[in-house]
């Protein structure tokens, strides 16, 4: 019997993860920095059409693309003359488990079944848990979800409680943990005990499963407007949403389309803090994941992360919590669409961005998520207010995460706030250079890899490391 104390389990992490993935990562781990990313993605042996067929068989994908006509009228009222791009939204809430995460889970669970696994384990507090549980249920596979749910008082915020309930409804065994990154230890123990598939969000399957979303956007926009969109905005956290969508856009030939990330600004709150835990009003799509994952993707439950957002990101925008709640209200009131918070992060950014784009241009917000008890602003903000967080109207730039939520007093208050991507790129390149063993320098091939990793140039990488 293997020892199951923290140090022993963590020491076995690589072998545990490898046997639970059914993928050989060895070719991608030979160099401390550089690996063949496209070869990693090519571990998914299905063509794009086959992926679409696999997903279609389980009711995933082919969601509606909706033009937000009332919001677009509002944008034109706010924008300078001749400005005000048209915004469309991809209604991913229509997927079986209520979010685009069904796309990632569908291909992963297809692979798990084909590879002979009896069940799957996912470490997630987000919509992905319900997505894996739903896709596992469709295939008669067992599903265990390990979630970070409670603070040390046993209190969980409404949105996380809802995500746990959804997993249970689809028949998952749900392990609900208190705050802390050692959740990973419990996750590894479950993988060891069960021999189930690691339904990581970051395998090539979980990313290839999103590619059809990008393809559908191009097809539907061509039908609606005669052209691919000028901009696609993705709510950004771990990077899989943006990576998969961008790869799909490229595969559909929309190489001129700009890919923009958007996250909720939660700066000042620590993601592993027991006391900050219930002072966040968003459980994902925020800077607590978005910034570290953009700057260094290999911080996950797989040896090499297939979600590498900085490779595809043209711009990264931050929005305030109050802006997202405001836009959620606008989407319901003006468009008749009650949707959960995830896609509304990107929508808030889109409303600001549309005002600096020309009126004949287009933006696609590439996801919505389901709304239900716990997910609405009413639940999240009532919970916040009961915990002493101030909720008021005003300028969202005055918002302090954990202390106040400022709901815009006018739609013109929704603003563009750029993350300095040059800084993020430099930081990634310097960290990579630091991983080289003593006495070994980055070779030409490594420089080329890092230029692709950071969507920059050979000259930029060389300037960063000299």
């Amino acid at each position, binding site marked *: 019997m293997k020892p199951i104390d923290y140090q022993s389990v963590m020491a076995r992490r690589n072998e545990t993860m490898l046997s639970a993935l059914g993928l050989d990562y060895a070719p991608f781990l030979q160099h401390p920095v550089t690996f063949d990313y496209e070869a990693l993605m090519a571990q998914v042996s299905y063509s794009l059409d086959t992926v679409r067929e696999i997903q279609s068989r389980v009711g995933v994908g082919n969601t509606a693309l909706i033009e937000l006509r009332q919001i677009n009228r509002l944008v034109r009222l706010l924008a300078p003359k001749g400005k005000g791009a048209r915004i469309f939204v991809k209604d991913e809430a229509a997927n079986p488990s209520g979010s685009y995460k069904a796309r990632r889970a569908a291909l992963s669970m297809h692979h798990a079944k084909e590879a002979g696994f009896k069940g799957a384990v996912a470490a997630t507090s987000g919509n992905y848990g319900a997505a894996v549980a739903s896709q596992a249920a469709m295939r008669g596979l067992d599903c265990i979800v390990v979630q970070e749910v409670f603070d040390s008082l046993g209190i969980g915020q409404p949105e996380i409680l809802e995500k746990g309930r959804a997993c249970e409804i689809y028949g998952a065994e749900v392990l609900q943990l208190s705050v802390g990154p*050692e959740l990973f230890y419990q996750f590894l123990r479950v993988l060891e005990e069960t021999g189930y598939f690691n339904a990581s969000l970051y395998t090539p399957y979980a990313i290839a499963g999103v590619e059809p979303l990008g393809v559908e956007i191009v097809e539907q926009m061509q039908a609606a407007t005669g052209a691919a969109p000028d901009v696609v905005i993705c709510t950004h956290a771990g990077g899989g949403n943006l990576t998969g969508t961008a790869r799909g856009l490229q595969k559909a030939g929309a190489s001129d389309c700009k890919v923009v990330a958007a996250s909720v600004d939660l700066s000042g709150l620590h993601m592993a803090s027991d006391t900050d835990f219930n002072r966040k009003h968003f459980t994902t799509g925020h800077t607590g994941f978005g910034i570290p994952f953009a700057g260094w993707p290999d911080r996950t439950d797989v040896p090499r992360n297939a979600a590498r957002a900085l490779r595809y990101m043209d711009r990264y925008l931050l929005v305030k919590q109050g802006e997202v709640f405001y836009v959620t209200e606008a989407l319901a009131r003006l468009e008749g669409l009650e949707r959960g918070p995830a896609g509304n992060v990107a929508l808030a950014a889109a409303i600001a961005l549309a005002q600096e784009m020309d009126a004949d241009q287009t933006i696609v917000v590439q996801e919505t998520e389901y709304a239900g008890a716990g997910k609405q602003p009413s639940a999240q903000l009532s919970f916040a207010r009961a915990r002493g967080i101030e909720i008021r109207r005003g300028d969202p730039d005055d918002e302090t995460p954990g202390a106040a939520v400022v709901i815009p007093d006018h739609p013109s208050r929704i603003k563009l706030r750029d993350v300095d991507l040059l800084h993020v790129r430099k930081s990634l390149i310097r960290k990579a250079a630091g991983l080289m063993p003593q006495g070994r320098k980055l070779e030409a091939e490594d420089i080329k890899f890092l230029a692709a990793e950071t969507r920059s140039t050979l000259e930029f990488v060389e300037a960063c490391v000299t």
Partner: protein
Amino acid sequence: MTFQTGDWVRIHSVILTPDERTSAIPKETRGVPLEMRVKGWLVTAGASIGDAVEIRTTLGRSYHGTLEAVNPPYGHDFAAAIPELLRAGEELRAMLAEAEGETT
């Protein structure tokens, strides 16, 4: 009150005590244990809240822990409307209606 084998319950256990936790976390987190809650069918007969019990989850897997609750409600709901947002919604409608008036 005692509960019967086959009742749907939630148990609580400590995964890591504070001194077993990683040092790479804020001190307020390191000062408390890593806890876990799981639901399943009660295996132990005649148990009361606070007793050490065994459960079988919906997948048939066994867990041991302290009996914390019997068929606990989920607890989350829609809560109350947010007046600040209701007003914002009305303002947005009015803005569009007013603009409509100007253009027709």
